[in-house]
Every structure is written in structure tokens, then in C-alpha cells.
């Protein structure tokens, strides 16, 4: 038996003694049971409330009423504000639970590695935000370091299957660098295509 094995066996034996040697070694001893309570863990889920009820709208230059569009055939241009509106169902229980609702990072990626696709993804990704339309009092918009997120505080009442309307807002910036060569920087996005296949809403305990 080599030294390492011997050492390990000895140490394991020592640990076993320490772990298994619970209790007292006094001669006299006594014990009493304590009636345990019931511990119930909270819950934190966000789920699709009504599948297929999502809708894309576009506001030209970010103003006016959004016009419903079929995104598959729509060609975006700088100034467009694209909004995807969808209902989700939130359950958050836990007396001391707090959570943050946010847009999953990296949800917008170029369809290919071509320059227009990558450039468009960069432009759109910088401005993608999430809004909750008419949120309940237990869900409030974050500020400062939590800007762009929503703080969920269920309290003792809890949030049970609360339907909220989530709006994912993607702005196509316009005139980011006014005065440059005829908008050369934004020209790099022409004919670009981005994939939103990984678009998701996260709800994380904070």
C-alpha cells in the first residue's frame, strides 16, 4: 500500500470518526423532541400567457400610433421603432422575495456574419428594451443600475398568475452621428438582417 493510499485511508477514517461521532459520550444523557413546523418555499415563474397573441408594430421615427406589420416582409430603416407586444404570466411568491424582470441578453444576433447583419445587430442590440404596459404596483420600473429592468416585489400577498403585457422595444437609431458623411455609419446596416430567435424574458431573484 503506497503512502498516498495510506494517508487517504487514515484521513478518511478520521473524518468518519468526526462525522459519525455525534452526540455525547457522557454516561448520563437525555434528549427531547421539538415539534417542527412546515416550511413552504416560494415560487418564481414567468410563462407564456396566451400563445400566438404577440404582435409587432412599427412607429415611424418613434412617433404616432404603431402600425401593425408582418415582420417577415417588413424592411426597417433608421428611425423605426419596432415593438413586440406579448402577454406573459408571472407568479412570484415569497415573503422576502424580490426579483428582476429583464430582456435576455444577446437576444438580437446577426442572421449571418456579414457586415450588414453584424452592424444591424449592433445597432439594434444597443437599444433593445423591455417595457411592461400598465404594470401592477408590485412590479415597478428599475432605475440607476437597474434601468431597463423591472423590480418584482410580491410581498406577503404574492403575485399569482398575474398577466402582464410585455413590450419589447427595438429602436433603429437615426442620426447617431449627425454631420458625418451622409450617415455613413448607419449605411453599414443597409440590407442587414438580424435574428430574434433567442428573444426571451428573464425573471431572476435578486
Amino acid at each position, binding site marked *: 500500500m503506497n*503512502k*498516498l493510499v*495510506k*494517508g*487517504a485511508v*487514515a*484521513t*478518511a477514517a478520521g473524518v468518519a470518526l468526526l462525522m459519525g461521532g455525534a452526540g455525547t459520550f457522557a454516561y448520563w444523557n437525555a434528549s427531547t423532541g421539538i415539534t417542527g413546523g412546515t416550511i413552504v418555499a*416560494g*415560487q*418564481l*415563474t*414567468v*410563462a407564456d400567457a396566451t400563445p400566438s397573441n*404577440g404582435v*409587432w408594430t412599427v412607429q415611424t421615427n418613434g412617433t404616432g400610433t404603431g402600425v401593425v406589420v408582418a*415582420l*417577415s416582409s*417588413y*424592411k*426597417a*430603416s*433608421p*428611425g423605426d421603432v*419596432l415593438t*413586440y407586444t*406579448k402577454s406573459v404570466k408571472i407568479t412570484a411568491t415569497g415573503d422576502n*422575495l424580490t*426579483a428582476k424582470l429583464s430582456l435576455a441578453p444577446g437576444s438580437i444576433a446577426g*442572421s449571418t456574419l456579414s457586415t*450588414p447583419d453584424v452592424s*444591424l445587430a449592433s445597432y*439594434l442590440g444597443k437599444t433593445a428594451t423591455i417595457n411592461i404596459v400598465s404594470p401592477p404596483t408590485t412590479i415597478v420600473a428599475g432605475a440607476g443600475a437597474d434601468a431597463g429592468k423591472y423590480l418584482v416585489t410580491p410581498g406577503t400577498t404574492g403575485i399569482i398568475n398575474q398577466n402582464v403585457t410585455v413590450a419589447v422595444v*427595438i429602436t*433603429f437609431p*437615426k442620426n447617431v452621428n449627425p*454631420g*458625418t*458623411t*451622409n*450617415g455613413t455609419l448607419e*449605411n453599414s*446596416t*443597409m*440590407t*442587414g*438582417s*438580424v*435574428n*430574434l*430567435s*433567442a*428573444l*426571451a*424574458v*428573464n*425573471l*431572476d*431573484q*435578486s
Partner: protein
Amino acid sequence: MLRALRNHHGEPSVRRPLFSPVNLAKAIGALTVAILAGVLLSGGTFAYMNSTVALPSATIKAGSAALTTTGTPLVLTGLYPGQTQSAAFTINNTGIVPLVLNVSGVAAPAADANSLSAALTIRVDVTTAAAGCSILPGTAGWQGTFAATLPTANAPVSLNSTLAAGATATLCLSASLPPSAPSTVQGGTTKSFSVTIGGVQS
């Protein structure tokens, strides 16, 4: 402490103490590695409670902005002081956004005799009038001379005309010799100057 013993062949053998510092250190090291590996390999996430809902996939496509021009180059023949000659071009917005047209570059003539170009005034207009370029607007879209500071890509001069997506307009490129032109430009020639028309999304 070493102690001489006899093995089954009756030969002396050496036995090292079981709990030597070296053995203990090795054992503790091995145990630590084992515990760490057990914790790290136990799988799952160590995050707090969390949940994610995926939204349906979608693709956003960007359009484009583009201008094309068609027409016959301006040829100046027999130009004299006080006269203006023009050439008409058709400009087409082939993109998906309206564009405010501008002059974003003027290239000086490749050849110039008798310094004619220095005396010329160049003018660019956008018109939708039926008369085309035969009657120029009262106020020029842009005009200048080769001797002055010319528009560049970084300093375009707006023509104050917006061309809708898919629309066309008539672009007039004119050259004139002012009445005060010096007589030294007589018989002069100017060749191959060009004007670049740009468009910025409105």
C-alpha cells in the same frame, strides 16, 4: 523514527511512520481535491430562483437607400459671357426611405485651357416643372465656382428637395459664364468635371 524489522525472507526491512507530515499533507490535499470535485461536479445551477419565457422567433430586415441618375453629360459649346447652358438628368430614389438631396462633391475639371473653369459658375437644381431645365428656378439649389470652397462628402450642401422613395425628379446641371468673365478665357476648354449628388434620410 526508523525501526529494523525482518520480512518473510528474514531480511531487514524499513517501515516509515504512518502519520509522517508528508503523508498527512498529501492526504489533506487529496481530500480537499475530492471535496471540491464533488461540489463542482454535482450539477445544477447555483443561481437563485429564476425563470425564463422564450418569445417567438423573428427576423428583422433593414431596407436600403440608393439614388441613381441617368442622362447625357453636359457639353458646353460656344459658351459666351452672360449665357447659361444646362443638361437634364433623371434622378431616381430606388431605396425605401425619402431622401433630402444634396451636393456632396464637385470634382474640378481634368483639363482646363485658358483658365476657363475659374470663370465658370456651376449650378445644380432639382425641378419637377414640365419645362425641365429650359427654365431654371429663381433660386438656385446650389451654385458655386471651382475657385470657391466646394461641397464635400463631409460638408454637403442641401438642395432643399426631398425625393420620396421610388420617386423620380429632374436634376439640372448648369454652367454659366458671367458677363464679367475676362477676355482671356476666350477659346478655353474645360473637360470632365463632375458633381456628386447625395441623399440623407429625411
